[in-house]
């Protein structure tokens, strides 16, 4: 099996580069398209100058928190063709049932389904891997297409991998209550990544990613609230209005260390800033411990950010500013996540054409504290509403097969 070849590692500089499918926050669950491309084309750690492993994953995912439930399958199939080409395909579904704080205060609960298809190809030539991918996502009021390209080069005795990536996305935003409403977004992503083997026990990676959006970036359904003495509750709502451009920059570093016994720890940090004045710091620490046919993982992650310059929980009056938003994810906030996962290898010596099979169960507990977004669903008097907080659980169960 390739996994244990003591050869050089063309490790994942890829791991984050072409990722982003960065749709505007407003449409968070309309999946970022460039994203899944990353899974297909760049998400898999490869050993040096070899193609990614032939592997198929069947995943069930379920997010439950803040009045929102989203679940569905994801199937990822990867197969090499000859010695130089590897193809991958992904089918992903989000089935959304939402009665979130935004929905219950300004709209009505709803259900929705989004389907996403992705295809990608890797071409290996010498120490160079060229990758390209396409993703299409469709739902009732949002269509998205994205295209990704990347080149990875192993160097310095294959201790170092440099990856350059570019992605382009094109979205069409609609409204379920207005068949004539169409708005466009375009998105470009640029990435540079270096993965570096530092010692026989330590590997590190540095990634820099810039994403630019242009077009209709706010949510066509979401509203902001403003003081209105004429209203019984003291405020009224009006539509959000975001800037038509946004550029984000993120630099991430991570390092993974093999402990004196067979286990690993990993530290990760990401600095983020954008043209909407959001500055964020994200750090995490994880531990991987194999035990017999099991592999256990524990992880803690912390994130903190400032708010967008046009975010207000309450505006002083109608159309008080040029741009306005009340998306809680644009508020100053902090979040913490604890993950526990276990994998069991139930096929280790081969069965039919399958070399190895594992089943994984992963549970994340996510807590978000919003520092300026208030919970107006409590009915508390104006000005004394409590700050909103959100708890969510994220369950993943998946089977993986190598062949």
């Amino acid at each position, binding site marked *: 099996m390739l*996994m*244990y070849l*003591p050869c*050089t*590692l063309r490790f994942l500089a890829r*791991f*984050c580069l072409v*990722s*982003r499918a*960065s749709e505007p*926050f*407003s449409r*968070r*669950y309309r*999946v970022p398209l460039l994203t899944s491309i990353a*899974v297909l084309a760049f*998400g898999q*750690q490869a050993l040096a100058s070899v193609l990614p492993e032939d592997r198929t*994953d069947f995943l069930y*995912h379920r*997010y439950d928190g*803040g009045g929102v439930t989203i679940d569905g399958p*994801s199937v*990822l199939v990867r197969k090499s063709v000859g010695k130089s080409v590897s193809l991958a395909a992904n089918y992903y579904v*989000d089935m*959304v049932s939402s009665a*979130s704080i935004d*929905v219950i205060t300004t709209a009505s609960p709803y259900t929705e389904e989004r389907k996403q298809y992705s295809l990608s190809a890797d071409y290996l030539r010498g120490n160079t891997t060229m990758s390209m991918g396409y993703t299409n996502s469709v739902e009732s009021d949002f269509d998205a297409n994205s295209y990704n390209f990347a080149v990875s080069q192993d160097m310095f*005795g*294959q*201790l*170092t991998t*440099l990856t350059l990536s570019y992605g382009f996305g094109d979205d069409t935003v609609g409204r379920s209550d207005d068949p004539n409403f169409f708005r466009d977004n375009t998105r470009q992503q640029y990435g*540079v990544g*270096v*993965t570096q083997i530092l010692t026989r*026990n330590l*590997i590190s*990676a540095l*990634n*820099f990613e810039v*994403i630019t959006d242009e077009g209709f970036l706010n949510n066509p359904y*979401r509203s902001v609230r403003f003081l209105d003495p004429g209203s019984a509750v003291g405020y009224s709502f009006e539509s959000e209005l975001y800037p038509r451009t946004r550029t984000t920059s993120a630099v*991430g570093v*991570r390092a*993974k260390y093999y402990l004196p016994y067979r286990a*690993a720890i990993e530290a990760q940090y990401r*600095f983020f800033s954008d043209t909407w004045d959001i500055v964020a710091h*994200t750090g995490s620490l994880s531990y*991987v411990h194999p035990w017999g046919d099991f*592999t256990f*993982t524990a992880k803690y*992650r912390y*994130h903190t950010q400032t708010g967008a310059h046009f975010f207000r929980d309450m505006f002083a009056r109608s159309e008080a500013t040029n741009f306005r938003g009340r998306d809680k*994810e644009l508020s100053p906030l902090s979040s913490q996540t604890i993950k526990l996962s276990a994998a069991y290898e139930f096929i280790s010596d081969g069965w039919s054409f399958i070399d190895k099979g594992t089943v*994984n169960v992963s549970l*994340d507990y996510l807590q978000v504290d919003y520092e300026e977004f208030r919970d107006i669903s409590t009915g508390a008097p104006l000005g004394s509403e409590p700050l909103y907080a959100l708890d*969510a659980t*994220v369950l993943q169960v*998946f089977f993986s097969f190598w062949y």
Partner: protein
Amino acid sequence: MKLRRILLPLIAIAMLSGCSGIEPWVKPYERDRLADPIMFLDMNPVSSAYIYHVYEAREGARGGEGTAGGGCGCN
């Protein structure tokens, strides 16, 4: 912009150093631990893509962290 001022010179230095003939200090036969699956930076791509997607949906930042982005429920 500050990020670019820091990173671009580093990237340029890294690229130029490709001409200097650096000897690999970790030999191929010393990389057995790095080839152990527990040392993979992304052990399960389909899973990590999904969870980064969740983070991106729940937070205002994106990119630079892992395989994926965006989305799970919000409005």
